[in-house]
């Protein structure tokens, strides 16, 4: 159960194994540094190349971060991994696709800059709304009846819900991928001077809207009354209930927040990679979950840090290690394993009260 309860063994408490681990970590990092140094002295990648890869990584990181927020919020409150979260994102992606297709027939997507921009924003909102409905329904149907069951039970329910949603979408929308047509306003990009650095407007849009949405989330959680209730439920459901917090309402709100962000991420993923199909949410979901664990699941700044680290590692890592880019997933999951070995609570770790740890 160490996986579900990562904070039990904290960093540096038992001296024996942790000393070995420390030595292992030092050797590993030294070997990696040596390898990177060797590769960099042999390869003649330019600054332009690294900048381009960094941009790829930041865009990816923004997407992962939005999805990772949902995992970490739900984990923080319910101590369960919502494995159907990637599918909630995919549903948002499909809703955004149909909204954009509708705007296209109205001629908005390629109309004036205002119409084109409006179609992007509205598609984003439609995606968020669809995911919101899916997320709340998921909580009501698949998780709430199991609230007091052993911890493994909702996890199994989550995996089942994930497949249920995937194959429902497959049956409704078919197996042929749906291809996003980028609205005119974000279809081109920005060349930075004559440095050869190119940033797509889609990428800029994704990066800044994800930062904006996460800022909103941070404000809600840290400043609002509901946010305070969320934090108190995360500490202890029972005591919060005794203090007059409506725990059910808080849990629904948490799912709603996570789902809205996932819906935005779904539409952005569609705009970025221009393709959406029934299993489009599965792998990005796993990646975002990995990001949340790397950063410290249950911890919002941790999820952000984990997501951007993972995105950048995936983009830059293969070249830095002198590997073909097909090794990006190997690198991502190796980092996950290393973090779980050396720091099971993730980089930032969750601030745990006695009862939860």
């Amino acid at each position: 159960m160490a996986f579900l309860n990562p904070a039990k063994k904290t960093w540096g408490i038992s001296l024996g194994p942790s000393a070995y681990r420390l030595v292992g970590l030092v050797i590993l990092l030294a070997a990696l540094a040596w390898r990177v140094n060797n590769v960099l002295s042999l390869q003649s990648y330019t600054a332009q190349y690294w900048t381009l890869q960094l941009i790829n990584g930041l865009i990816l990181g923004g997407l992962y971060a939005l999805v990772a927020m949902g995992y970490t919020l739900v984990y923080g409150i319910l101590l369960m991994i919502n494995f159907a979260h990637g599918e909630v994102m995919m549903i948002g992606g499909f809703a955004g696709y149909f909204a954009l297709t509708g705007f296209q027939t109205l001629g908005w997507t390629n109309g004036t800059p205002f119409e084109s921009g409006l179609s992007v924003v509205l598609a984003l909102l439609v995606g968020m709304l669809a995911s919101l409905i899916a997320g709340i329904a998921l909580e009501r149907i698949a998780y709430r009846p199991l609230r007091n069951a052993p911890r493994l039970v909702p996890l199994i329910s989550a995996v089942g819900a994930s497949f249920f949603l995937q194959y429902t979408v497959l049956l409704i929308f078919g197996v042929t991928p749906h291809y996003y047509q980028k609205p005119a306003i974000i279809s081109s990009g920005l060349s930075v001077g004559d440095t050869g650095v190119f940033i797509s407007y889609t990428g800029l849009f994704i990066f800044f809207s994800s930062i904006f949405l996460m800022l909103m989330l941070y404000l809600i959680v840290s400043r609002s009354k509901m946010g305070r209730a969320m934090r108190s439920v995360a500490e202890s459901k029972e005591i919060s209930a005794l203090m007059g917090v409506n725990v059910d309402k808080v849990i629904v709100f948490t799912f709603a927040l996570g789902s809205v962000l996932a819906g935005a991420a779904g539409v952005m993923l569609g705009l970025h990679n221009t393709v959406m199909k029934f299993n489009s949410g599965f792998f990005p979901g796993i990646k975002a979950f990995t990001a949340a664990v790397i950063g410290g699941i249950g911890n919002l700044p941790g999820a952000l840090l984990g997501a951007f680290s993972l995105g950048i590692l995936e983009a830059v890592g293969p070249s830095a290690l002198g590997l073909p880019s097909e090794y990006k997933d190997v690198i991502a999951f190796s980092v996950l394993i290393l973090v779980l070995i050396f720091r099971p609570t993730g980089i930032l770790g969750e601030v745990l009260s006695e009862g939860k740890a």
Partner: protein
Amino acid sequence: MSKKLFTLFALLTIASLALAACGPAPTATTAPAEGGLLMGMDQAELEAAGYVVYAPSEPIRIGISSGLTGPIPDLGLDTANGALLAFDDVNAAGGLMGHMYESDLQDGACDGDQGTVVGNLFAADPSIVAVQGGLCTGETIGLRAIMEEARIPLVSASSTFPGVTAPEWTVMNRTPLPDTLQADVDAAYIYNDLGITSIALIHDSGEYGLGLAELIQGSFEALGGTVTSINGHQVGDTDFRSTLTTIGTEGAGLIFFGGYATEAGLIASQMGEAGLTDVIFMSGDGALTEQYIDAAGAAAEGTYVSTGVGDLNVDAAAEFDAKYEAKFGSAPDGPYHYHAYDAIMMIAAAIEQVAQTDEGGEGYLIIEREALITAIRSTSGFPGITGTLTCTEIGDCSAGGIAIYVVQDGAFVQVSGFGLTD
């Protein structure tokens, strides 16, 4: 609680019994003639001895495995439709000795594991006399091993990886051209006609995609060109920017992708973002479908796709197109519908050669499996839509050559290669 469980269990048991009763009805409804159907053997004995036996008016069943789900569902449906059309035509011609042809279409999902599943399904059905498929090379390889064991002849209409046919696979045949020729023609076109001397390769790590990329590498290097890198991805990958950015540092003039339509389209559409605006994109037959143009969007313009085309019988092809549109409501879209039609026609012609009736004249149709395998392999001068088909001793029955298309105004326009009239 235990009472509830018991009720549930009882219900399940009853349901399973009922389902079992719905299964295939016993075939020998008519009493066989005295002394058996053929050589003194009755139906069960004949089936055990490697014969397929159809009772009077029972249909002759041919299996089809196509990737109706998986990475290229459009191409899979188009290929399967081509095969289904052939059943209409042979049945319109009266079938064979009072027996109609019947298709059994299964989803091979363009995948080796699912190919094995479908293969086992066909092998377990004594009424399947031959199989057309699979769509993708991996799927066909999965099917092939089981068909070989079950002695069911297999004709693929779209698996182009060279290793699909080999002397040890006695049941395996195909109607499209193997990729060796495609690689040679594509490499020559890139090197000579486009005047590009260095290319980068991307593949989807599948049997077909990796195979095609490696063949292109061999052919292109043999011409004196340079391959700057070979980059593997996975079927289902959607973000190729990191790979493309790396390729951008290598100075290649063209990217060739071995794989299927969606990935090909996404690569084409993401090349601009990686700064590869003056690099040409090219892919093979796995990408030749509308799905590719949809996926690439505006970036599809000016990209190249090659495929093996038959030595087309223009009249037959036009007739096929009209029937196809009438039956399925849309024009054929993809490289292999003609090949699939020909595959079924070839199988039907071979069945006609080897089928015999029972000695008592009861209307049984009896086909010896080994004789059918030999008959399909020895197809010679068969007039198909894709040309005059003659199988080699390892089962390559294709005619024609390689055509290269460029995308212009959202449509494939042939620019070079076989069958171009100008």
